[in-house]
């Protein structure tokens, strides 16, 4: 895949970081404001997709095998499972039990384990969206070669 013109490249390089930070904000504030792991994860993936579409597939050296991102995806869904399993050991012994102290409603650090679920589901969604996109790009590279 070839890149676009210089204007598009420079603009995306300026914007992509802000989009990435906004995605992180949506994930972290998932238990306070609208949004959460699913929406924020797709925004984070969108910042990378923007960069790859504008700069071409040589930009991130994409012709190699991309295994790191699949490992992140599988690890984060496993961590979600482990946090849920920890509820069976600590406290009232129920799967998906909220075993951390809940704190004040409306604070950034509150709601027990819900922010942790948000963060890891965000990782998982971002990694899986990016994996699908990279698989399509690498498929194209292999076909044209």
């Amino acid at each position, binding site marked *: *895949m070839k890149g676009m013109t210089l204007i598009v490249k420079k603009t995306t390089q300026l914007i992509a970081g802000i989009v990435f930070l906004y995605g992180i904000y*949506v994930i972290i504030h*998932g*238990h*306070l*404001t*609208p*949004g*959460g792991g*699913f*929406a924020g994860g*797709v*925004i984070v*993936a*969108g910042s990378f*997709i923007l960069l790859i*579409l504008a700069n071409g597939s040589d930009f991130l050296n994409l012709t190699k095998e991309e295994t790191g991102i*699949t490992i992140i*995806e*599988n690890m984060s*869904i496993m961590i*979600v*499972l482990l946090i*849920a399993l920890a509820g069976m050991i600590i406290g009232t012994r129920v*799967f*998906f039990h*909220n075993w951390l102290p*809940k*704190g004040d*409603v*409306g604070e950034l650090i*509150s*709601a*027990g384990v*819900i922010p942790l*679920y*948000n963060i890891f*589901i965000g990782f*998982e*969604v971002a990694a*899986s*969206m990016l*994996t*699908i*996109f990279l*698989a*399509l790009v*690498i*498929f*194209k590279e*292999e*076909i044209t070669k």
Partner: protein
Amino acid sequence: MELAISLILIFMILGALYALHAKDLLSAVIACGIVGYGLVICFLLLKAPDLAIVQIVVETITLVIMVAVVLDSTKEEKFLKPDNQGFINIVTAAVFMVVIFYFLRLAAVNMPGLGEGSLRMAKYYIEGAADKTGSANLVTGVVFDFRGYDTLGEGTVLVTAVLGVLTILRIKGKK
């Protein structure tokens, strides 16, 4: 508000019908975008910002990927002549449509009106959810606390989808 939602729904149906009959694949993909963005406006009118954010982001990303795929492949859709099999398909679809509309009509009588009251289970979630889960956002409280199994299932579906995509798109075997 019901009038506005009905207008948007009619617009979405027109977009979907156009996407079916468009000759050019690129315009069909963009017409599919009408359905997604119309749904975003419906969610905003029904005061569901969480769903609207997810829908608008996912719609944009999928539209970008679909446009990128269509631009790199053939734009023309292959024309296939309808045969006896197609006739049977049309009859089956018509029968299913009648059956589904009949049962939908039966079920719609018993549902509460738009914006009037809430279902019994939803009422339990709304009352004191902030105290039970500690989360200020009610939707996140429901998604990660009351309905945790659902969210785990969604994550597993994503992992399975990625595995399927990687399996299909792999040309060279792993060395």
